[in-house]
């Protein structure tokens, strides 16, 4: 049997017979029977009739056939859908409003779900991403804090063969500069052990990823590019494979480009270029090479078992640091998603709650519209009941119409969500994983379909049950339309009340978010971020020859000062200061210090901030008492300090701060790269007090800080704070050239990382976690509540409009009998007004109850002021939405209204 024939046979066995086929067969039987009857002696006409009485009519046979083979339900549903579509087309206004109200809610919900899916459920493109663990060390004394650690080669090999482990990736990174081109460019290289290709299981976009053969002969000089780097540096050139990339004067052959979703990794720094780990060289005679591990567990291994198995291997190496008291430490394998869940889970949950509210309001709107329209359809439904439709049949019909609306709304909503889901990423780019790519996929489509069905049933069921319960005897003679007794109104009012209450909740939340954000933007920062840019440089640790030249503290300070002067000579640059990790709104780590006159026992904490004397002028931080150190004192580095006001207030009686002594025992080198002054930890005299500038995040109170000349402790990097006239970024190119004129291969950092990047201080504020979160909340909740308000108003408007249309005659009679117009207006708008007012009252009560919960979630006080403002706005708009259509009621000339009868 040929394939075609087989398929035809299969089709015949599945496909129902055609209408004509069934009818023709039945007709032939009918004819045969009729002939038999005639043969038995019946007259032809009588035989014709009897045959049809006995066997049935050919016209209905197809229905019998489809019923017999179980297709009837489909036929009826098909009919319902066609009828529903026709009904919608006849009422385009109703259809458009219903579909749009739902589409808004579904778009927002789907967008939020795709965001949650992309960010929290499946942010990583890696194979078996849920089994990939980031091992962290937890100190029992501070269980909320954890630290990452590295492993030696031997430890890595031990971990690799441990029972619960599937595979291990070791990685590390370093900054390099692209050479051989024009100006040097700093990039971040991630070294990956050569099993990276199989560990990640991500197909390269072009070429290949790192593979085991790259380890041969001490590592092959090959490079795999990150997508963004490829776009930025090679403009997405597809012929890049096989070309040479020169970094630190060494050529590398480009063998692959990773896809956009691959951005390993957010925590250690996203690599611009991925290199085989075998190429990793100990940095400037540094200690042995360290591997940062990612561990992929075997399936079905519990975290506890894996922790227990790996802890001895990991802790063994840590004994070399006796001060870190290993007794307190233990290993915890942390799924790689955890850092994001902690930061984003709450934000997204709150946003999801917001969109669900919006969706419920949209559904309520559809219910209201269907109920309102149902009154005009009572006649039609009564006829259907009268000619034998069961209640179930009518409920089904109405439900199918609701589903037609919800499905149309879903199609529109899913299309809109595609763009909407990008909004949070645009507004708060740094709080989301770099690798999360939002796209419509099967799970999201399944979610939307489920949502459509749920909504259809949610908003369709109540009206369907309500409308199907009508008595044809009462409804049919209808149309006499006197004073309409309308029991359905009761249900509208409940829906409107609920809708208004929920809208108020959203509006109050939005008000709180916006207030919080405004408060944040208006808060005095204590410094002036406008037109200031941070430029980070890394000193040459990669190149031993150059490094030896600037290894001494004096040489390094001179080198930094030389660069500083060059930058200062660039046109339009007004002030250049040096800071080390001193860029607000965050500033360097806590250190403990000792003040004269107090015992050694208690060690108060303050930020120790390393800057030069121009720092305060560049940031426009005012000097309140005393003075700032001069250039000589700056190059010496010791014996002096300046404190901020918070410090003086907390630790010294403010008036007598200047002249006191303090010392910072922790001001010693922590690694070989730091150059330290002779007496960095000795007593320092406080010579001045400066104003408070934010140093603990935009929204947090300023913490006590001690400013010290940066030459006291210089690491292998530094930052310049450059104040310019006009937009600092436009000077960047000249500044680059100026720096290159000091040392041709001194690159500046291209990354935007707060640690040592290049960015403007206004950007730094926008990137601040709290700032971007608050902005995200205020914009999104603003949008949500505007949508909710629009929906609620449409609901109120349509209820009043429908009821006015229904009761035209009644109003005509009332007016003709001399009712005052104000009274008629009141009657027309009464129910909607009362329900809206009830909604506002319930909403107010509900909000004050929820206030505490919300305040906790939004980390922002729930303000009564914004609640009442929202309530007032809602009340006014609801009043307008009621009165606009109600005016129609009094606009009817009585004579015309009566003629309608």
């Amino acid at each position, binding site marked *: 049997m040929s394939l075609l024939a087989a398929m035809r046979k299969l089709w015949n066995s599945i496909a129902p017979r055609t209408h004509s086929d069934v009818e023709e067969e039945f007709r032939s*039987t009918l004819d045969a*029977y009729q002939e038999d009857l005639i043969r038995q002696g019946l007259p032809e006409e009588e035989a014709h009739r009897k045959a049809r009485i006995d066997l049935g009519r050919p016209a209905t046979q197809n229905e019998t056939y489809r019923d*017999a083979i179980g297709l009837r339900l489909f036929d009826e549903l098909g009919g319902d859908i066609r009828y529903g579509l026709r009904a919608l087309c006849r009422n385009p206004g109703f259809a458009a409003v219903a579909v749009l109200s739902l589409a808004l809610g579904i778009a927002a919900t789907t967008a939020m779900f795709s965001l949650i899916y992309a960010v929290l459920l499946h942010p990583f493109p890696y194979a078996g991403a849920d089994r990939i663990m980031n091992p962290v060390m937890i100190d029992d004394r501070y269980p909320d804090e954890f630290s990452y650690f590295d492993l030696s080669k031997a430890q890595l090999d031990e971990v690799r063969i441990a029972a619960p482990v599937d595979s291990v990736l070791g990685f590390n990174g370093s900054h390099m500069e692209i050479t051989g081109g024009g100006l040097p460019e700093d990039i971040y290289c991630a070294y990956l052990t050569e099993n990276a290709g199989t560990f990640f299981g991500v197909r390269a976009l072009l070429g290949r990823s790192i593979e085991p053969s790259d380890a041969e002969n001490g590592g092959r000089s090959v490079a795999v590019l990150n997508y963004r780097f490829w776009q930025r540096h090679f403009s997405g050139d597809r012929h890049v494979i096989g070309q040479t990339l020169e970094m630190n004067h060494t050529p590398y052959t480009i063998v692959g480009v990773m896809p956009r979703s691959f951005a390993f990794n957010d925590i250690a720094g996203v690599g611009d270029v991925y290199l085989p780990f075998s190429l990793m060289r100990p940095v400037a005679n540094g200690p042995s090479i360290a591997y940062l591990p990612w561990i992929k567990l075997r399936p079905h291994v519990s975290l506890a078992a894996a922790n227990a198995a790996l802890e001895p291997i990991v802790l063994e190496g840590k004994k070399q640091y006796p001060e870190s008291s290993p007794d307190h430490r233990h290993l915890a394998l942390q799924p790689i998603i955890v850092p994001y869940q902690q930061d984003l889970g709450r934000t997204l949950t709150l946003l999801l709650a917001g969109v669900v509210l919006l969706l419920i309001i949209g559904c309520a709107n559809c219910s209201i519209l269907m109920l309102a329209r149902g009154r005009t359809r009572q006649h039609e439904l009564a006829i259907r009941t009268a000619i034998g439709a069961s209640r179930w049949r009518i409920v089904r019909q109405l439900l199918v119409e609701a589903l037609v609306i919800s499905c149309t709304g879903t199609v529109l909503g899913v299309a809109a969500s595609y763009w909407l889901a990008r909004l949070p990423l645009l507004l708060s780019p740094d709080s989301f994983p770099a690798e999360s790519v939002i796209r419509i996929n099967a799970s999201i489509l399944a979610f939307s379909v489920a949502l459509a069905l749920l909504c259809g049933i949610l908003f369709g069921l109540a009206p369907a049950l309500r409308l199907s319960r009508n008595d044809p005897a009462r409804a049919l003679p209808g149309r006499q339309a006197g004073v309409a007794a309308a029991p359905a109104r009761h249900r509208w009012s409940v829906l409107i009340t609920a809708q208004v209450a929920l809208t108020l909740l959203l509006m109050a939340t939005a008000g709180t978010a916006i207030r919080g954000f405004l408060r944040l933007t208006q808060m005095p920062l204590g410094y002036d971020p406008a037109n200031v840019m941070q430029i980070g440089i890394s000193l040459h640790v990669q190149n031993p020859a150059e490094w030896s030249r600037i290894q001494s503290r004096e040489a390094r300070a001179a080198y930094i000062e030389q660069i500083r002067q060059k930058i200062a000579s660039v046109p339009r640059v007004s002030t250049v200061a040096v800071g080390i990790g001193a860029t607000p709104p965050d500033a360097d780590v806590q250190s403990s210090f000792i003040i004269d006159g107090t015992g050694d026992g208690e060690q108060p904490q303050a930020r120790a901030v390393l800057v030069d004397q121009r720092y305060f002028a560049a940031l426009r931080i005012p000097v309140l008492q005393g003075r700032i150190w001069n250039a000589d004192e700056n190059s010496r580095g010791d014996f002096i300090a300046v404190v901020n006001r918070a410090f003086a207030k907390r630790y010294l009686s403010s008036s007598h701060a200047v002249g006191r002594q303090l010392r910072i025992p922790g001001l010693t080198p922590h690694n070989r790269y730091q150059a330290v002054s002779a007496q960095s930890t000795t007593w320092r005299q406080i010579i001045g007090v400066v104003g408070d500038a934010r140093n603990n995040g935009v929204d947090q109170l300023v913490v006590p800080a001690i400013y010290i000349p940066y030459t006291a402790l210089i690491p292998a990097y530094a930052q310049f704070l450059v104040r310019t006239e006009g937009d600092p970024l436009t000077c960047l190119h000249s500044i680059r050239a100026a720096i290159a004129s000091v040392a041709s291969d001194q690159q500046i950092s291209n990354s935007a990382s707060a640690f040592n990047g290049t960015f403007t201080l206004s950007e730094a504020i926008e990137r601040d976690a709290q700032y971007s979160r608050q902005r995200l909340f205020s914009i999104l909740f603003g949008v949500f509540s505007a949508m909710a308000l629009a929906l609620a108003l449409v609901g109120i408007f349509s209820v009043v409009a429908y009821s006015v249309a229904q009761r035209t005659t009644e109003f005509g009679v009332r007016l003709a009998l001399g009712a005052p117009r104000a009274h008629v207006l009141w009657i027309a708008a009464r129910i909607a007004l009362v329900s809206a007012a009830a909604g506002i009252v319930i909403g107010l009560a509900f909000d004050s109850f929820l206030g505490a919960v919300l305040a906790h979630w939004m980390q922002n006080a729930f303000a009564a002021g914004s609640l009442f403002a929202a309530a007032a706005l809602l009340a006014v708009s609801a009043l307008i939405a009621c009165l606009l259509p109600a005016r129609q009621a009094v606009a009817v000339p009585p004579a015309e209204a009566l003629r309608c009868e």
Partner: protein
Amino acid sequence: MTKPVELPQGTLEMLILKAVSLGPLHGYGILMRIQQISGERLEILQGSFYTAIYRLERRGWINGEWGESENNRRARFYSLTAAGKRELKTETAKWIDMAAVVAGILNKKADEI
């Protein structure tokens, strides 16, 4: 003429299978044959007749094909499929078994119980 018998539910399909098992028949032919074999004692509910045929065909127990009837009319002829043959066999066995048990009980005399 003896009294007509009413069919218990579900037995019509069995009878159709039996009628068709003797050779391909068109719809009216099946009706005639059942009446003829039963000695004109069965009044088949005409309305349900085609419903039964459609259902049997859908289940694949009988297979319909267009052909010429005895008086040169186009008619749809049904024949038993292999599955239909098996179905008829098991149903027949079941029916005879059941009828025997029921008859056995009903025929018992009072003193035999």
